């Protein structure tokens, strides 16, 4: 058996397992944990388009998540527009905001960019907390918005059980992974990589680094906003502290960084390894050892940055390929 064949078989098996999981796993608690895991994998993968490929450190992505959540929720509550449409509209708004923010910030050097995005995210939260009515739209300030679970169904992206949410976010995750894959293989991906590592050198070769970063920002913010709308429909209650929090921005960046920024598998692996730690330590130690999961996050982050700056995906992919090579001992290409 060749290595390629093995790789295909293992990928296929993985897909069967994750698609079949809800048939075996009936507990809504565990399904919810998995949904959040996929949601985080989705968010970190979208973040990675800017934070990984473009080589900057955005720490305000929660703002775009919030834009998505608020757009779809406000449109649904006030005008009865399907959250699916609201999702896309939120994505477009987030893209435009992302471009407006990206235009001046991408000129800044490392730390300044991180600080500017933090200020942008926090400023957005303060704004939403202080605004009850934005024009005709009721944002309800710090009290947040609640969606009454009345018209359940696919058109309203609202379900009584967890399984549909599981499949929707899974498909969204696969979609965003496909986008990342194509971006990384496209001219844009190579330009971004070059611009992230050596901006001056890339520019001297005629790469419009600033424009590439803006395109990446537009895609990334669009995708992040879609997840925001999904989250609003999942929890049916959003408020500024939950969807536009600094903690969310940091957690997205952390997971991607620990998994490995700039790679396709990294952010997903990060979510896979860290989300369960956070969920289970909250379930079992939440009362006795508060904040334990964040101590683990922080420690892992420090250790990974010191010993494995390219993230955990590097040793893990190496191990994976090692196993594949072991299973497919001699794959001599016959010409």
């Amino acid at each position, binding site marked *: 058996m060749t290595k390629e064949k093995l790789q295909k078989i293992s990928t296929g098996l993985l897909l069967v397992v994750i698609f079949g999981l809800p048939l075996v796993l009936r507990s809504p608690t565990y399904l919810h944990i998995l949904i959040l895991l996929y949601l985080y994998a989705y968010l970190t993968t979208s973040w990675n388009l800017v934070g990984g490929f473009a080589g900057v*450190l955005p720490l305000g992505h929660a703002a775009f998540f919030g834009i998505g959540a608020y757009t779809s929720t406000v449109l649904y509550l006030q005008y009865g527009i399907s959250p699916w449409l609201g999702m896309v509209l939120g994505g477009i708004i987030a893209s435009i905001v992302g471009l407006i923010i990206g235009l*001046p*910030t991408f000129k*800044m*050097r*490392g*730390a*300044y960019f*991180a*600080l*500017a995005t*933090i*200020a*942008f995210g*926090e*400023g957005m939260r*303060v*704004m939403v*907390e*202080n605004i009850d009515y934005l024009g005709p739209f009721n944002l309800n300030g710090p009290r947040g918005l609640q969606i009454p679970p009345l018209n359940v169904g696919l058109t309203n992206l609202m379900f009584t059980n967890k399984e549909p949410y599981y499949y929707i976010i899974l498909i969204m995750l696969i979609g965003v992974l496909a986008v990342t894959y194509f971006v990384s293989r496209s001219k844009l991906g190579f330009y971004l990589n070059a611009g992230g590592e050596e901006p001056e050198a890339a520019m001297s070769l005629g790469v419009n680094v600033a424009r590439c970063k803006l395109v990446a920002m537009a895609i990334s913010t669009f995708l992040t906003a879609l997840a925001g709308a999904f989250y609003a429909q999942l929890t049916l209650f959003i408020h500024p502290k939950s969807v536009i929090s*600094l903690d969310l921005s*940091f957690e997205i*960046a*952390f997971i991607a*960084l620990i998994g490995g920024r700039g790679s396709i598998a990294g952010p997903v692996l990060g979510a896979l390894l860290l989300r369960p730690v956070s969920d289970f330590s909250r379930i079992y130690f939440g009362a006795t*050892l*508060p*904040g*334990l999961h*964040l*101590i683990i*996050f*922080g*420690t892992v*982050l*420090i250790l990974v*940055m*010191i010993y494995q*700056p390219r993230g955990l995906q590097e040793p893990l992919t190496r191990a994976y390929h090692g196993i594949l090579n072991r299973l497919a001992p001699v794959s001599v290409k016959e010409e």
Partner: protein
Amino acid sequence: MLFVLEDMINGILMGAIYGLTALGLTIIFGVLKVINFAHGSLLMVGMYFAYWAVALSGLHPYLTLIVVVPIMFFFGYYLQDIVIKPIFKAEREVREPITVIIVTTGVWYVLDNLTLLIFGPQYRTIQDNPLRGEMLELGQMLISVPKLWGFFAAILTALAVYWFLQKTRMGRAIRATSLDRDAASLMGIKQYKVYNIAFGLGTATAGIAGVTLVPFYNVFPTVGVLFDIKGFIIVVLGGLGSIGGAILGGMIIGIIESVGPQFMAATWTEGIVYGLFLLVLFVKPSGLFGVRYDW
């Protein structure tokens, strides 16, 4: 009008204390060229040391400086030596290593949540505090006494740090490293030792800030986050690496926060601060009091 003047004065006093909390950030940036995201957490650690020193020994809050400052200096010294130095060694050629930002964020999370784990989420204030709620009457204006002392502490600390950097041998070595670390190394300056000392110095000023805050501020595990974000804004407003700029930047924030609520909802002032910050970043990233050179 008197209200506005009173708010102005209180804003300047509180602002100087904000400046003091941000002083360490600017010192560390000036030398290491990284923004220490854990700075608010270091301030929080300083506040806890001061709190427990007062609670256990019953000393006057300001006397705890004798204990807190050395502890904080060595805390910062070894934090840099053990946690951050390896990154610098790995990324020697990068001038502003982004990885260090990430590591200091990790330190932030560990410190905050370790404190939460050990001391719990309670808000603590010093019992039988000699300074609590003490006011100075100036005509018809009331001025908080602990904030006044904090103001003096901020000015004195800034002057002392400035003197240290300008006049002592170690200060010269620090300035040399800040200007060009390779050239400084060639002159026989031990680069990493200078980094350790600069980090220790920055952490010690966070300790001073902690002591001046404890008499009138609550102590709780996430208190640092409030000052962290404010600190970033202050140092950028004042110009990263500028000591006087940090104090002035702090005063601007203090004035906005205390005078602003006369004209609008108090929660909006935070938004104005972020807006001003973004504006300065876009228009004049070197800061309002633009420093061309790092020192």
